[in-house]
């Protein structure tokens, strides 16, 4: 490799000036004159050695093709072939090879294979040039054959070499060759794929057969190639699949005589469909293999997203739903987003796929007993239910659509009539069939009418709610089960204990308007049970992982309220239980474990949004929230205080809590004394108490909370009571959470008023050490002796060293001091 690249870098010889025919050259008169006058000057021209120049400047002139050919072969074989196809062998580089027919050759085999390759290249070139379909397949077959041969031979080399010349070098060489050939093959197939793909894209009708070839490549053993093949096929299909569903002609239709064009189209469609089918089969098989899982899923998803109207979409959908809860993050995301886009772009497939997908997911959930990844249910959120289909659509919209359809029909028919005229084939049967085809065509391509759409929507809804109810029931069952038989069947699964509950609740809240009123009662019952679930089993000492968390229970309350709100409180359901739950859940809240956002949301929806609250209940919540604010961080405290403020504003009588009237004054309820530990807000007797909490909250370290507390305690006296607090508990929670804290130093250059110097004299007195002089003296002496000993030691060592070097002792002694000085 290195060698060849070096060779390429060599600067090419200067090119000959462009060849100009002699007659084209014009001599000016002056030139002629000059030459004639000074023949001596021009003599050199006659002496020019043209052959030498030619040699120097790139030899004989080559055609472009030849140059290209040469370049190619140079690159691939590391040797140079000249025009006559004789092989230049560099004996150092390449050992002689024994060919199939037993002759020793210097690279003869290589030559053959190269030739074969050149053949294929030529074939491809030809294909590009002329579009003779009949001829093409032959050529292709030939090319394929030669390629196979080449492959075979490539495979055979190493063995032969190993057999006949078992020198280690040969083995190594063989290995290298094998590697090289593998790489080459990879490159080849890659190029091939690219070429085929480009051809297909440029003219699908003519090159539709190439699909098979590409599919063939996908059967390769190299995973890389297969992946590449799959992806390029995906690109091709995405582009060439028509905007309608293909219906293969029946046998009867096949018997009929048709025009060339029709034949051509039929051939095209059937080939496309067959190839597509084969491709999908391949994908669905590969999708189950871990190596190809991601690639295949990507292909499937992209296809379904791009061409949801086309044949075999059901199969695609099935395999997507199968993977919707895949443990592989990428695959799961892909599947979910695909289904989501199916739901949101119903126009592409007329809503049919929505029904199917929802149905499939519902079955999937059922089959897995609700142990799936939450994402698989979250996709329902992107379904859109259109309420108006039933009424208005039925009349005007439907008519419009009909008209539109007619128009389009006419247009198309006109086109076809024109075509027919041009072709001059007016057989009646033919046109009948065509009509049938168009009718089919329409049925597939265009939106179904309103009735059908409504039907589909009902179906979808029922599947969605079936899923949701299944999840709720499953959760309740698992809770009940776990409280009875403790840990016998506890396998929380890979996704936690109730993976689907959260998205299910979200979905219920969103689609509650679509829910039939008959089911509402059941739903509320379920929610009530779920919300109060853990208070039942609180007594059991073993805490069960299957119990619902505080956030989940809060969510249940929330959904119940949302359901009520969206039905305009038409239902006659008592929400009291949910308030009781909330009243107790506030105390079970743990900052790290539970989501504060959910808590803030429930405060907002359950307490702030209601215009009027029962006085006892409101007072109880005011008191509890104020107490709550004493124990938790700023975010929780602030959202609680905002709610308190809101409640106090709406319930004027609750402001009695701000006044210290003995026994709750005029509004005291049936309970005379406040019960802080009560579990029911109505029985807490909160009206009898005073909001003393505000006192300590005014000393809160957070300035915002302390001002809030002051405002609250002055609410009764201040005049401006009309304004409503614009901040919601959620907003307060978000604003005061630590993540939002800016931590910017407020005002750096502040002056401290009371700069203070400590009278440190008294402390100093304590710090002065009593030093034992006697001991110090002793230590000093010891230190001295040690140091002196060291010094003496050093000196002695020096003295001992010196005699070895010099004989003259006397001289050395005199020099001792300066020497040691130098040393250090």
């Amino acid at each position: 490799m290195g060698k060849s690249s070096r060779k390429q870098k060599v600067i090419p010889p200067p090119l000959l000036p462009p060849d100009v025919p002699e007659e084209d050259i014009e001599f000016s008169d002056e030139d002629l004159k000059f030459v004639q006058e000074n023949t001596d000057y021009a003599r050199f021209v006659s002496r020019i050695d043209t052959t030498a120049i030619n040699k120097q400047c790139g030899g004989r002139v080559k055609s472009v093709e030849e140059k290209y050919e040469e370049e190619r072969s140079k690159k691939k074989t590391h040797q140079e072939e000249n025009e006559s196809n004789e092989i230049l062998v560099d004996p150092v580089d390449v050992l002689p090879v024994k060919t199939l027919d037993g002759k020793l050759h210097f690279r003869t085999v290589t030559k053959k294979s190269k030739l074969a390759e050149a053949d294929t290249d030529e074939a491809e070139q030809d294909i590009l040039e002329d579009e003779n379909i009949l001829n093409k397949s032959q050529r292709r077959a030939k090319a394929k054959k030669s390629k196979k041969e080449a492959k075979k031979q490539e495979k055979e080399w190493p063995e032969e070499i190993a057999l006949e010349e078992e020198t280690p070098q040969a083995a190594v060489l063989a290995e290298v060759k094998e590697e090289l050939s593998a790489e080459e093959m990879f490159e080849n197939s890659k190029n091939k794929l690219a070429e085929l793909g480009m051809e297909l894209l440029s003219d699908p009708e003519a090159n539709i057969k190439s699909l098979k070839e590409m599919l063939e490549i996908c059967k390769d053993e190299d995973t890389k190639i297969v992946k590449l093949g799959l992806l390029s096929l995906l690109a091709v299909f995405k582009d060439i699949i028509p905007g309608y569903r293909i219906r293969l002609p029946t046998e009867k239709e096949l018997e009929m005589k048709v025009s060339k064009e029709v034949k051509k189209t039929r051939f095209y469609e059937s080939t496309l469909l067959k190839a597509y089918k084969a491709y999908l089969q391949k994908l669905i098989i590969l999708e189950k293999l871990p190596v190809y899982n991601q690639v295949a899923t990507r292909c499937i998803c992209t296809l379904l997203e791009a061409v949801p109207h086309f044949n075999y979409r059901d199969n695609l959908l099935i395999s997507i739903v199968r993977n919707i809860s895949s443990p592989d993050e990428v695959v799961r995301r892909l599947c979910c987003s695909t289904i989501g886009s199916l739901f949101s772009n119903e126009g592409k497939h007329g809503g049919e796929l929505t029904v199917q997908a929802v149905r499939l997911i519902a079955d999937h959930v059922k089959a897995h007993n609700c142990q799936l990844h939450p994402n698989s249910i979250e996709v329902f959120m992107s379904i859109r239910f259109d309420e108006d289909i039933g009424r208005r659509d039925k009349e005007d919209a439907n008519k419009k659509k009909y008209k539109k359809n007619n128009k389009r029909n006419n247009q198309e028919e006109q086109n076809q009539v024109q075509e027919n005229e041009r072709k001059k084939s007016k057989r009646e049967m033919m046109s009948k069939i065509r009509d049938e085809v168009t009718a089919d065509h329409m049925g597939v391509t265009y939106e179904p009418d309103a009735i059908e759409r409504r039907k589909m929507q009902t179906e979808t809804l029922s599947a969605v709610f079936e899923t949701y109810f299944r999840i709720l029931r499953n959760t309740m069952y698992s809770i009940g089960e776990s409280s009875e038989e403790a840990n016998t069947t506890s396998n929380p699964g890979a996704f936690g204990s109730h993976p689907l509950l959260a998205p299910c609740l979200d979905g219920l809240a969103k689609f509650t308007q679509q829910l039939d009123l008959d089911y509402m009662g059941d739903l509320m019952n379920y929610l009530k049970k779920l919300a109060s679930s853990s208070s039942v089993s609180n007594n059991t000492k073993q805490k069960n992982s299957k119990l619902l968390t505080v956030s989940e229970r809060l969510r249940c309350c929330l959904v119940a309220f949302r359901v009520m709100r969206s039905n305009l409180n038409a239902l006659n359901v008592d929400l009291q239980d949910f308030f009781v739950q909330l009243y107790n859940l506030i105390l079970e809240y743990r900052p790290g474990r539970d989501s504060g956002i959910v808590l803030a949301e429930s405060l907002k929806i359950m307490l702030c949004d209601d215009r009027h609250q029962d006085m006892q209940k409101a007072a109880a919540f005011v008191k509890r929230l104020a107490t709550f604010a004493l124990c938790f961080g700023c975010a929780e405290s602030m959202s609680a205080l905002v709610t308190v403020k809101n409640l106090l504003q709406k319930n004027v009588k609750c402001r009695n809590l701000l006044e210290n009237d003995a026994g709750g004054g005029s509004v005291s309820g049936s309970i005379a004394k406040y019960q802080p530990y009560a579990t029911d807000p109505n029985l807490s007797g909160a009206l009898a108490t005073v909001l003393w909490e505000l006192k300590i909250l005014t000393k809160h370290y957070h300035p915002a909370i302390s001002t809030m507390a002051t405002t609250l305690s002055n609410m009764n006296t201040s005049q401006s009571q009309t304004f409503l607090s614009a901040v919601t508990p959620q907003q307060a929670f978000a604003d005061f959470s630590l993540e939002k804290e800016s931590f910017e130093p407020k005002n750096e250059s502040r002056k401290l008023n009371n700069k203070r110097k400590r009278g440190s004299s008294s402390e100093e007195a304590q710090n002065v050490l009593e030093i034992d002089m006697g001991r110090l003296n002793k230590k000093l002496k010891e230190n001295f002796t040690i140091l002196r000993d060291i010094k003496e030691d050093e000196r002695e060592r020096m003295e001992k060293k010196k005699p070895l070097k010099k004989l003259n002792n006397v001289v050395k002694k005199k020099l001792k001091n300066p020497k040691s000085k130098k040393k250090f």
Partner: protein
Amino acid sequence: MGKLGKKARKFAKKNLQSVEKRNRKLKPFFKKKFAKRNERHEVEDEEEKKVEKQPKKRFPEEDHLDICIDAVFNKDDGEVLSGGDSDTDGFLDELVDEADSDITNPKVLSGSVLSSCCELVDEQQSVEALISLLNWYRAACYYGRESSGMTGSDIQYDIEDSDTFANVIVFVLQKADNTFRNVLGLSDSCRKEKILKLKNNPKWDSLKPLVNSFLRSTMHLAKQAGDLEIKVFALTQLRVSVVFFAAFPDLLKKIIKISVHLWVTGEVTLSQQAFLILKDISMVFNLECFDTCLINMYKAFLQDCDIPMANSEQRLLFLRDSFVELCSQDVQKSYAKASVSITQLAKLSKMALTTKNKEAVEKIHSEQYTNCVDLWVNFIAANVQDCDLQPLLYTIIQVINGVAQLFIGPRYLLLRVKCIQWLNLLSCKSGIFIPIASLVLDMLEYKTTNEAEKLGKKLEAFSTVKLPKNWLKSQNFQEQCIFSVIELLAVHFAQWSFHISFPELATIPVMRLRKFNERSTMEGLKRVVKRFIEQVELNIEFVQRKRDDAAFSPNDQQSTEAFLQLEKRNTNASYTQYYQSIIDKSLGTKKKK
């Protein structure tokens, strides 16, 4: 350069003039370098360390991950590093008659010579005698460190025996300062301005080199002496003469460096003495040196936190307290530094909170970070009553809350306890209300959340902020949890026990503790918790009774403030005593540890 052979050298000398020239140039350089090596060694090392650390934190704003809490004051560094160690240090020139004696002979100090010198100095304040004494003193201080007198003088000073050695050191250290003052006519409590004015005093010219020599030698002794007590003695005596450093800014920098080093690394008494010197310096030279002292101490402290040592807990406590003491000398100046440092801490914690980046979280979960927080918490606690430190207080509380929020779970029990202790301390000292109940009560549930605990699978290295996993299951750990809960709540309640809102404050904790008692199976713990609940309920009852009698409303500022203030002074209430006993007990166990 390899050494040449003899012949080659000869040849070179004869024919290669340039080589000879270069040799001549190089020689003195080497000589000097080696001679000064001992002295410079440590200083250079330190310098290198700091230089190494500098580049990576040059732009703390650019990349938040690079925030380094000990590097916030980098820009102030330069002045400290430069100077202070470049000067030479030689003997003083003595009077002519002494110089007449044979130069090559070493001068040997004997006991009799010394005593006569001492007498001269003592009684007549003789400067000449002082000069020679100081020369001997210098020789003694450097004894064994340099094999002989070095630059500047050819006279060899030697000391005859150990008695003389001890005497000269003790005498000079004890008397020198006094003598200087007497000669110059200064009082014991003179200010540095006076020293600076001395430049006009004619006596100063003659005395200045003496003072210089004395300070240098003593510093050397303090730094190099092999024995602890000698060092301590040298430092205590040096402290008296701190004022004289005013005339020698270079030496001042040097002494700061030495003292900081001794403060951080030294043994207890030595560390104390070094700190006293630093304190004196920062007091006397407030203008120039306060910041330098503070920054150097801060850095040394934080660098020291990372090195685990046997008694590091106590030592760090001492270092922290002394640092806080120093800071408290000039709150105005410390405030600026504290604000910079705390902002840095806050930035780090915010980053960790928002990104949950592993690297950032680990940075917070380090000794350095916690010790730094500890430092400033104590600083604020010490000064919040006298000065308005509100912004600092607020920021540090949020930082602590952030840390507590970041590390949930039983493995971080100690860190959480520490956080709550900080909050309690700040709350007690500043009188503001900091809610800690939820942080504390979370610890009650550590036991039950054990199985689900999936946090912290990182390194198992033992540190004071993180517990090894196998501890968590042990009964001892659970006991520890409950005891710390009770202890922390006791501190919290003790502070507010006479506040009008106390019943409400205690409501939720009491509920939670009751719930714990219902669930718990350990009888011993249950009893402890039950007793605590009983006492708190007594307290609640008391406040409630008093409150029922009161006629004012919550918005009556004055009466609420005055509520139960009288009772507060009375410590007879059983719950007050109970809280106190718990607090005392916890302090006791801490000391035992």
